């Protein structure tokens, strides 16, 4: 059950670069890149920090692929 996310979409909507978002949530830019590619599943803490930056609920940003089908 892979986790899909809307980080790229929301980041573009908020006019943030990958570096900006990485700095806001305290991770490296490479982690944001992997997150957007879907090759990295973030911890609950990181997911909540990202949700806080975008002012959206966690489940709006991160969903299990099965749920979206």
């Amino acid at each position, binding site marked *: 059950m892979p986790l899909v996310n809307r980080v790229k979409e929301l980041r573009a909507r908020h006019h943030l670069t990958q570096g900006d978002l990485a700095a806001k949530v*305290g*991770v*490296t830019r*490479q*982690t944001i890149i*992997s997150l957007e590619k879907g*090759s*990295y599943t*973030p*911890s609950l*803490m*990181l997911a909540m920090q990202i949700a806080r930056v975008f002012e959206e609920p966690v489940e709006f940003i991160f969903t299990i692929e099965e749920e979206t089908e």
Partner: protein
Amino acid sequence: MKRVIIQSLSSIILYILMAFTIASFASTVTHSLAALKSGVFVLEFNFLPFLLLIIFFVVWTIYSFRTRPNQQMGFGQWSVRMTEFSEVDEREALITAKATKAAYVSFSISVPLFMLTFFFYPLFQTAWPTYPVFALVSTLIIANLVYMTTWIRAYTR
């Protein structure tokens, strides 16, 4: 990633230089003892591996300390840590854990394999008396290479 590569390769170079220094010292002791039996005192030591080890160690220490990720960390604290570990964020911590696990597994394969080679050691002991030193260092080098490649593969995924 650059840090992991540089530190892993530096460790490998240090292990190789250490092996040659120990082998050179062991060879000196063997020859000196053999000469002493015949009543002659001979002490010939190949200083080159030791000199290279010291030079490389000093350069590596200065470079590694200057480029340490946590600049607030003092030398005392830094010197007791493994420099290959890069855990800037949670993903890197996860990758490091994965690479460390792979290196640990490599030990459980390489050590028994090298132990098996010791069955034949009496056959070539005279030709290569310092083989145990190089066998030991080889297990460390293999573990380092496994750590580095696993880290790079996981990081670039």
